Each structure stands twice: as structure tokens, then as C-alpha cells.
């Protein structure tokens, strides 16, 4: 009943994500050519046997470009989530178990970051070094670790006072053991949910920056920037504008479905 629908939601999300991954990474192996080479003899062509998704206003192969853009988004999402989970969890454990000035110092830093709207902070970074993927990644990871930190700190502060942890401490076990056996099992399901939403947010953030032209610079294919490039041709070639929009929507949907709580998680 309810449990079954939840299982299906997560399963559907994973399936969708797998399909998108297979398409974007498989394309680089299976199809010749690249998404940036122009062919002005074939501009704005409708999907056909040669160009599976048609071509854009420079005659670039949309099938290849869309795969490149998705690859970039997936890669950035993965990198941002991994970095911010590791940072957030390590600092969260430190703040919750050590307390004192470490806790206050990190808390101050977090308050500073949270005081600014996330997207504005990323835009400041992006406009310092336009088009740099590295700076974009640093900026997004910098605002995202805060979430994982706050979750980790709250969960571990509670677990830390339980008799189980006290007993393990009395028996002489160290912090790493407490983390493996006590903190992580409680934390992991909640982190997974947060990480799925975090990945979706990273993708949306990069697309937003591309859309206002401060993100990844042309000719590199990027979803947000493709949307704004194809926007003027929505009347002549609406199928072209629909492609990056649909890809973006599907990718975000896939992440959100993955983040649905499993049947085993408490309400």
C-alpha cells in the first residue's frame, strides 16, 4: 500500500537517473563527432536519421550536445554532493562531540553563509571567474555543506547522549568506532534524502547561472545556457527549446524521486 508506492517512487527515480546516465555517458562512446562542431548547411533541422534530435542554429548535433550538457550537470552534482557531504559530516561530528569553541566557531561560519542568499553567493563567485567550472563547483559546495552540517550536528547531539554511546565510550571505543556503529546508521538514511535534493539543487543552480550568462561560457554545452541560446528560435523550432528544458526537468525529477524516504525510515 503506502510502503509499496514509496518503494516505487524511489525505484522510478533510480531508473530515470540510470537512463539519463546511460544516454549521456554512452553517447560519447557510441557516436562519432562532437557537439561543438558547426555545420551551417544543416541549421535548425528537424530530428532525422542522421541527427536524432535535430540541429541547432549553428547546425550543431543536438543529440551530442544534450549528452555533453547532461554529463556536465551529473558530474557537477556528484562532485558538489560528495564534497559537501564529507565536509558537512566531518565538521558536524566535530561540533557535536567536541562542543566548546570549535562548535561556536563553525556555527559562526554557518550563520555567515546562511545570511546570504545561496544563488547570490554563487553568482558573486561566478562573476569573479566567469566560465570556470572549478570556481562554480567550489561556490556551490561552499553553500551546500551547511545543510549537511546542520543535520549531522542535530542528529549526533541526540545520539551522543544515548546509553549505547555512553556504554561504548566506557568500554574504551574511540570516535571512529562510535561513528561507524552508532552515528552513521542513524545518519545515513537522512543524509541520502538530503543528498538527493542537494544534487537537484546543484544542477538547477548551474542551469540558472548559465541562463543569466555568468556560468559556463559558450561553446561548451550546458543546459541553462542552451535554453537561453535556443530561446529566440522557439517559433521556428520549438522542439529544440523543449529538449534542454525536458532534460533539466527529468534530471531534477529523478533526483527528487530518489530522495523519497524508503519504507524502513520512520515518519
Amino acid at each position, binding site marked *: 500500500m503506502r510502503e509499496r508506492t514509496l518503494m516505487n517512487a524511489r525505484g522510478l527515480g533510480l531508473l530515470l537517473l540510470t537512463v539519463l546516465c546511460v544516454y549521456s555517458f554512452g553517447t560519447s562512446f557510441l557516436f562519432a563527432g562532437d557537439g561543438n562542431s558547426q555545420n551551417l548547411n544543416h541549421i535548425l533541422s528537424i530530428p532525422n536519421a542522421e541527427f536524432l534530435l535535430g540541429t541547432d542554429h549553428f547546425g550543431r548535433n543536438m543529440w551530442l550536445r544534450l549528452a555533453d550538457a547532461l554529463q556536465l550537470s551529473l558530474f557537477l552534482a556528484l562532485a558538489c554532493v560528495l564534497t559537501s557531504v564529507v565536509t558537512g559530516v566531518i565538521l558536524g561530528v566535530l561540533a557535536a562531540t567536541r562542543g566548546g569553541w570549535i562548535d561556536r566557531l563553525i556555527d559562526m561560519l554557518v550563520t555567515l553563509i546562511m545570511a546570504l542568499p545561496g544563488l547570490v553567493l554563487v553568482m558573486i563567485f561566478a562573476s569573479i571567474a566567469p566560465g570556470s567550472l572549478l570556481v562554480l563547483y567550489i561556490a556551490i559546495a561552499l553553500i551546500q555543506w551547511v545543510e549537511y552540517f546542520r543535520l549531522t550536528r542535530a542528529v549526533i547531539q541526540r545520539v551522543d547522549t544515548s546509553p*549505547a554511546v555512553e556504554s561504548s565510550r566506557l*568500554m574504551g571505543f574511540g570516535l571512529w568506532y562510535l561513528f561507524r556503529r552508532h552515528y552513521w546508521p542513524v545518519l545515513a538514511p537522512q543524509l541520502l534524502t538530503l543528498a538527493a535534493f542537494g544534487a537537484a539543487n546543484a544542477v538547477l543552480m548551474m542551469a540558472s547561472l548559465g541562463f543569466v550568462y555568468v556560468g559556463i561560457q559558450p561553446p561548451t554545452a550546458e543546459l541553462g545556457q542552451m535554453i537561453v541560446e535556443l530561446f529566440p528560435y522557439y517559433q521556428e523550432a520549438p522542439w529544440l527549446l523543449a529538449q534542454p528544458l525536458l532534460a533539466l526537468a527529468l534530471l531534477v525529477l529523478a533526483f527528487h524521486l530518489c530522495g523519497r524516504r524508503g519504507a524502513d525510515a520512520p515518519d
Partner: protein
Amino acid sequence: MHLIKTTDLAVYAGNVELLQPLSLTLNKGERLTILGQTGSGKSLLAQAIMGNLSESLHCEGNVELFGKSRSLSERKALWGRQLTLLPQEPWNALSPLMTARNQLKETYRLVRGLAESAARTRTEEDLNQFELQAGADKRVDQLSGGMAQRVAITCAMAGGAQVLLADEPTKGLDISRRDHVVGQLKAQAADGVLLTITHDVAVARQTGGRVMVMKDGVLLEEGLAEDVLSTPQHPYTRALISADPAKWWQPPRQVFPEDSEALISARQLTVGRGDQALVSGLNFTVHPGEVVGVVGDSGCGKSTLGDTLLGLIPPHSGLVDRQKGISAHHWQKLYQDPTAAVSHAVPLNVLLTDLVQLHNLDATSVPALMARLGLSETLLQRTASEVSGGELQRFCLLRILLLKPVFLFADEPTSRLDPVTTREVSQLLVDLAREQGCAVMLVSHDPMLIEKRCDRVIQLSA
């Protein structure tokens, strides 16, 4: 009309039968007590009837409630208002964020459906009746074990259900409160059904009605309470009844002179939690090999004293001198609630291996210790959620014994165990003291147990 009827109800974990097929019928006004050792499948029966078995288990057979066969979702609709399970572990049953008073009031408002003012009046009545006013504005983590248990019972009964399934309702309560709780249960179930699951023979006697004696998921004996308890037929029932602490053999007490070398000495000690001092003016010494009983009302600071002696919290004032030069892991604590005291993430044998590796312990002594504690190898392959409280407590004791402690603070270690296991576990604690020269401080609400097991008693009073 029968209110509960089970037909060949059995519980399995995979292919392993945990509860033998059992048929029982309870009509309006009837009381049934299921008596047996921990781990005998008693709790599973209640969960199978309620429909809240954990996902790794499944049940077969048929359950009829209020004269009709009910699906799981139909049974859920009855929860609280018509059918209630009094939970075994109050810590898992109460909201960790609400005070006892608000929790009780919310139950009256939302489950019973009373108006705000009526709910408030009923809440205050209950708090007075169960002597809970002192803890009414505390959260569950601030309450003592006995108080939390009474709050959980009050909340479970507030819904007004007349079919009560009570899983060890008197665990962790002292005798006068136990009698009160049993009286309340009988009164509320007068027009319904009371199914009590217990290991306490005295509770079975007070409840009256019918009794079923179970061991390892098998029904051994069944009949009217007075018949079964006065003339038990099965050897196991006889063992259970003779395991009452009052009938234990009392070993000679050992006297440790005050001036012999002390392991711990406390001078003018005041202990408390946060800013609140609980007990003051304590002066005592504990010697190696001594068994010291600690008694006092629930919530009077017994656990806090233990934490202070172990160095987990600082004393409010006064001095605690612990013998120098003993490494930290030789000072141990046995917890009241074993399910809260171990990690549920991995099987028990992994936890055991972790400990053996950490301190390079002698793993060859494990099988002998396990045999002595009555633990089997297959049991250790399960996680903490999948074994009974009694089994888990014996596992906790196994880990502690392996560490060869010099001091053990045992905080009501037997309040979740049946009489037979209580006798064995408490005897093991005494043996530990005598054989390894470990000082044991034993907290219990049972004066007979303290009397039979301890060399000396420390009485705490606020």
C-alpha cells in the same frame, strides 16, 4: 461475544518458528496472563494480535477482534480507542520532544476526543493518581525509568480502550506502584479484555483469571490462575514460582573493614543532574570484591550516583576518590534498558568481535562464558532489535565480563528479566565480585533481591 480469538496464530522469522501455533479465545470481562521467561515469544503474541510485528517477522493463522476477522489496516483503525498495547519500552513509546503532561493531554484531546478543558482536568487527575506531578513538566529523557514507565502506561490507557494488551506493564516499578498499576489495568478492562504478558508471578497472581505458561514459544501449561500457581504441574512452572527472590538461598555476607584498601571512597558527596542536586551528604567506601546494594525511591538519584562514581558527570560538591592506576575500561556500567545500550546496526557477534579486537581480549574464554550466561551462537547472529530484553542484558553482561572490570555499577539490571533469569544474572554479579575481586554496586527496587545478594546497602533519600 469473543473480543479476541486467535486460531493457530504462529510467528516466524524466515523459516524459524518463534511462536508455536496458538489458539485462544477471550470473551468480554475475561483476563489472561501469559507467564514465561524472556525470549519465550510472549511479546510476539501481543504484537501479532495488534498487527505491529517488525518487518523481518511474519505471522500465520487467523486473528479475530470484536467478533470479526480483521485485516492489518482494519486493526490499525482500532488502535488507541478500542485496542491498546501497553508498550514494553517507555523510551521508545513516548515522544522525546514533549513533556509528560502535554503528552498525556494530547492523548486525551486527540485520541479520546475530549475538549481542551476536560482533557486538562483528566490529565491532572491522572498525574495525581499515578504520583507523577514531580515529573509532569519533564521530557522522557529527564524522567527516571519507573516514572517513564508510568507515563507510558497512563498515556496508553488514556485512549479509553477496553481491550488491553499489556507487555510487561510492571517492569521497573517498585512493589506498591506495581500493585497500583495492576489495579488500574483490571479496572479499565472490567468490561473488556486484559491480556497481560509478564515474567512476574506476583502480577499473574494479582491479575487472576486464566494463566498460560510459555517457554521458547511453546505453551506448557494453562488453567485458572489460582490452580496453576498453587499446584503447578509442569517442572518449568514450578521453577518459575520457586525463583521468587524471597525463596532464594542466601550466601554468607562478607564484611569488609572500613580501613581496608578502598576502591572508591566518597566524602560529603552531593550528586545531581544539571543544576538540580538530588542526594547530598553521602559518605561511603567500596572495596574490591564487595557487593553493595543501592536502594531508594524512583527518581531519587540512583543512576546519577552511578554516573558520578564512574566519572561520567562531575559531583555537585564533595569528593570521589577512585583508586589510581586502573585503566578506564575496567570501570563499567550495566544498564537498566539493554535495548537502548547497544548498537542496533550490526549483529551482536560483530559487536563482540569489535570489543575483543579493541582490547586484545582472550577470545577462547568466550564460549565458556556464553554457556554460563545461556547465550547461543545462533542468537549472536541476530541484531539487538531481534532478540529479547533478557537475552540482550545477558549479552551486555558477557561483554562486561570479558573486560574483567574492577568496578561495575549495575543499574536495575534485572528489572526486565524473569525470575529464573534474575536469579541467575544476579548470582553471576555476585560471582563476578567474589571470583575477580570486582566491586559491584547493585541498584534494585526489589528489597528481597538486595537482601539476598548484597553485603551492605546504601539507602538514598532526597
